[in-house]
């Protein structure tokens, strides 16, 4: 084992670098896809900003101003270059306003998408972190218990409960939680109004209800996967051996089965965190939580293209990164890859 150690770490690193490269390629393809999709819009920004009564001269002037008269490849490169330097362009909804106010619409100005996105991105991240912090330990514990007491009443109850919560739409769970915890027993606020200068405790209180909703959605999936991963292993000979030695069922599961089930479990956790990215959109709208998801839906409705593009790219990158993380963690925690014969 030790003899091959050096070579082996290299091969694992090689695989990881390969995956990272693949992730970068995916990100690039996704950015092209988003850009191409947005360019399928009828008309262009200039006509949309000016409305129907626009003179051809005015449209041409705005096109010149926004660089819309260049060819698509050049515009794509401009857009990509801007993003890489942290400039997501100018928000459409804010552009008119700032033009009247005479404000600077460039990078970091009032109308810049980046300036709008930054605080909301932090809020969304906070929400996802709180949800994950509650969901991961609970689902691991429930999964272990369900595997330990499989086919018991407890297992069946948990099975039905999780299946129900997986298949319910997020807004159904959200409104039930609002009904129970905000209206009938007023313990938590049903609207998450969050300001930048809030204390941590206050912020946590406002975030708790949306976080609990996300927890309900994600926990069910993670718990079922944990249970399945462990039960899959229980049929293997070395578990049979441990059982025949007279080790208690709890010890068999925690010390013998769990370490080998770690790879699929970590994978499932990362995938579910990726799922949180999507779930966040609906939940943020229900609770009027000032995060990216809400901003995304709002800008979709008013067709604020630069913001839609930026939000889409952020969601997609988070999704790709978490999937990548799942992949890499799966490789790293696989004993067969780390210690080959």
């Amino acid at each position, binding site marked *: 084992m030790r003899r091959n150690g050096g070579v082996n770490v290299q091969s694992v690193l090689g695989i990881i670098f390969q995956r990272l490269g693949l992730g970068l390629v995916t990100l690039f393809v996704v950015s092209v896809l988003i850009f191409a999709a947005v360019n399928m*819009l009828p008309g262009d920004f200039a006509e949309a900003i000016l409305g129907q009564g626009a003179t051809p001269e005015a449209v041409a002037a705005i096109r010149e101003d926004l660089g819309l008269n260049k060819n698509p490849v050049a515009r794509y490169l401009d857009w990509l270059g801007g993003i890489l330097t942290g400039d997501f362009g100018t928000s459409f909804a804010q552009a008119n306003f700032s033009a009247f106010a005479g404000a600077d619409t460039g990078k970091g100005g009032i109308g810049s998408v980046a300036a709008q996105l930054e605080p909301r991105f932090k809020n969304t991240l906070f929400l996802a972190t709180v949800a994950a912090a509650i969901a991961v330990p609970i689902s691991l514990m429930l999964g272990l218990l369900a595997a330990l007491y499989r086919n018991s009443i407890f297992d069946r109850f948990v099975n039905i409960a999780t299946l129900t919560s997986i298949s319910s739409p997020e807004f159904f769970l959200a409104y039930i939680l609002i009904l129970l915890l905000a209206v009938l027993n007023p313990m938590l606020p049903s609207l998450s109004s969050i300001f930048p200068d809030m204390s941590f405790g206050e912020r946590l209180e406002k975030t708790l209800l949306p976080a609990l909703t996300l927890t309900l959605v994600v926990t069910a999936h993670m718990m079922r996967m944990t249970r399945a991963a462990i039960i899959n292993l229980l049929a293997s000979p070395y578990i049979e051996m441990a059982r025949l030695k007279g080790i208690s069922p709890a010890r068999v599961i925690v010390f013998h089965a769990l370490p080998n089930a770690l790879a699929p479990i970590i994978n499932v956790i990362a995938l579910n965190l990726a799922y949180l990215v999507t779930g966040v959109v609906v939940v943020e709208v229900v609770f009027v939580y000032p995060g990216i998801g809400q901003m995304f839906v709002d800008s979709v409705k008013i067709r604020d293209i630069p913001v839609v593009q930026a939000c889409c790219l952020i969601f997609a990158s988070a999704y790709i990164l978490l999937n990548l993380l799942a992949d890499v963690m799966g490789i790293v925690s696989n004993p067969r890859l780390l210690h080959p014969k």
Partner: protein
Amino acid sequence: MMNYILWAVIGVAAIYASGWLFRFAGRKIDWPRDNLNIYFRDVGLTEAAGFILGLVAVYFVCYYYFIVESTFFRWAVQGFIIATIAAYAFWWFGKLVGTDATRKLFRQMPLTAAFGILIILIYVILAIFAGAIAPHGQEDIFEKINVLPGGDLATGGDPAFPLGTDQLGRDLLSRLIYGAQNTVGIAFVTTLLAFFIGTSIGFLAATVGGWIDQVASRAVDALMAIPQLIFALLLMTIATAWAGSDKTLVTLYMIIIIAVLDSTRVFRLARAVGLNIVVMDYIEAAKVRGEKLSYLIFSEILPNATAPLLAEFGLRFCFVFLTIAALSFLGIGIQPPLADWGTMVRDLSQFINFAQFSPLTAALPLMAAGAIALLTVAVNFVVDWMLQKTSGLKE
């Protein structure tokens, strides 16, 4: 905060202690039946605590049901009991009536699957006969607006509108029933379309292979790299711009967009299943016979791939259904005047704040959302059972 944690720790400790006591007593006392103490010898401590926890749960259910008399809790418990009885009756009925094959199927079926089939049947009937069942049309606008639910004139209701009317004066019960037709129907059509696209391209990639397989697989990889709901939202932005003020066109575009996005998952499955079938001898024989590609795909591969595809159809239907509901809830899915559950939830959501004064009013948005949840739960129960049956897994 610290208080809550302290109470939780004390609660867990108390449950474990009473569990230990319970087990201890069980081991000592050989009553009410012989050899019960031998059973208790093998009971683990957590298992014994679980019994106590169950007792505590039953106590709280009774307490809230009979002493506190919380309306919503009562409805939930009653609904659960009615659902259990209905599922059991349906299961029993299925075991007695029908051909030998269906009777055998029902005998091996768990209660949850019977419940799922019953609910799906009810939804299908509602969807097909919505026009006959609903008291009014889905687009009929009456003069009475904002009628409260309950049908009682004294409390601001109206017997003609059992669930009241919305802010435009449309009957909510009728819209709820028509929702089955629109929401479920559109989701079903979308899933069918997704399956048509996914399986045909997937089988094609599996049989022909080569560059077609490569191009299709890489395209699917790229499409799947963006979370589905996010991508659907982006494409819907563009679709609404194309559709302009034509509401039906928006719904049509939504069907196509979601079908294409969802066909990627079907493609992956169809390709994987197809690759396993393509290497079989009978496919080789058919190729040697000189059969056409269409014959290979539709008469040789498809019949052998129905079982996994059918289970996948149930799961995909749930996903499509939930995606459409989410889009409608966000205001960019199925467009009014079509009655739709997702839109109804959004429109009625503020009523939830009246829960303490008028529980029935507050239940309106939950009914629409619950209608969505109930169907997906039912389909999932059936799929779960089908997967367990085909994989032969007992544990």
